[in-house]
């Protein structure tokens, strides 16, 4: 078994109104940032998973999203995998 890190982004579907995003954008406009045309606010989750392969880790993350982490009625998710401990590496 190998450890993987799953970086999961959960966003409201584009068709669903995101009043938080609207409020943040309005605030940025008030501050003078007229270049900001839209804002959507979402969630970022980081999981450490044990799996046999990268594909296995991806399938598990997908299952977790479908079961609990995202609500398929109004949200969509994106999964990115990285080897666990990558953040500790470096040159």
């Amino acid at each position, binding site marked *: 078994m190998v450890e993987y890190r799953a970086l999961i982004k959960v966003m*409201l579907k584009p068709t*669903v*109104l995101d*009043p*938080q995003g609207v*409020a943040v954008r309005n605030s940025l406009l008030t501050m003078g940032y007229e270049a900001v045309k839209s804002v959507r606010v979402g969630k970022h989750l980081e999981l450490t998973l044990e799996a046999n392969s990268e594909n296995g880790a991806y399938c598990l993350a997908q299952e977790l999203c479908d079961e*609990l*982490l995202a*609500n398929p*009625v*109004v949200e969509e998710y994106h999964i990115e995998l990285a080897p666990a401990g990558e953040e500790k590496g470096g040159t």
Partner: protein
Amino acid sequence: MKCAVVVFPGSNCDADVYHALTDDLGVDAHYVWHRESDITGYDVVVLPGGFSYGDYLRAGAIARFSPVMVSVQRFAQRGGLVLGICNGFQILVEAGLLPGALLKNDNLQFRCEWTTLRVDNHCTPFTSRCRKGQVLSLPIAHGEGRYHVDSDTLKEWNDAGRIVFRYATAEGDACREANPNGSLHNIAGIVNREGNVLGMMPHPERATNSLVGGEDGRWVLGSLVDYVERGCV
């Protein structure tokens, strides 16, 4: 009528429901802790309001995996009456017992106030005491009550009369001004296909005694009592 009031960690309307049922309606009510799995012998299960699991992740998302919810699912499948109020409604949609989702209010405010609702279906076990089009005055207290559902389901639910309550003016007009949270079609409460599971954002248990400002909650909770006693709408 024997009623279970489920208590999740973070429920905060459980005592209100218990009090309204026992003291104001004379119902035999019992608290059921969320770790219990035996709910046999009950006629009605109420999922009360509050902030189960701190509303972490999404309101109701974690509570739906509480052990008691397996029994509630089975209870509902067998035709048992389930009433979800506020956070209880959020748990029911997360559990898939009702369609749709409840999102942050479009105004981003936590709305704690009296609202008026129009009864659009009086032929359910939860509204049998009401007249069609009757306007009830009930309080709300939520930040995430904006009902959302895909357009096909909305059409099916609309056509079949499963939208039971809509936010409306005192005259019964379900207009934008009467909508406190941006809910689709002013939806405040819906039933499932079978008609035995109802979720609603307003709190009938906070309005069963004039001492607390109103008694219109009796139209809802009293309907349940009638239904259980008579066995039909």
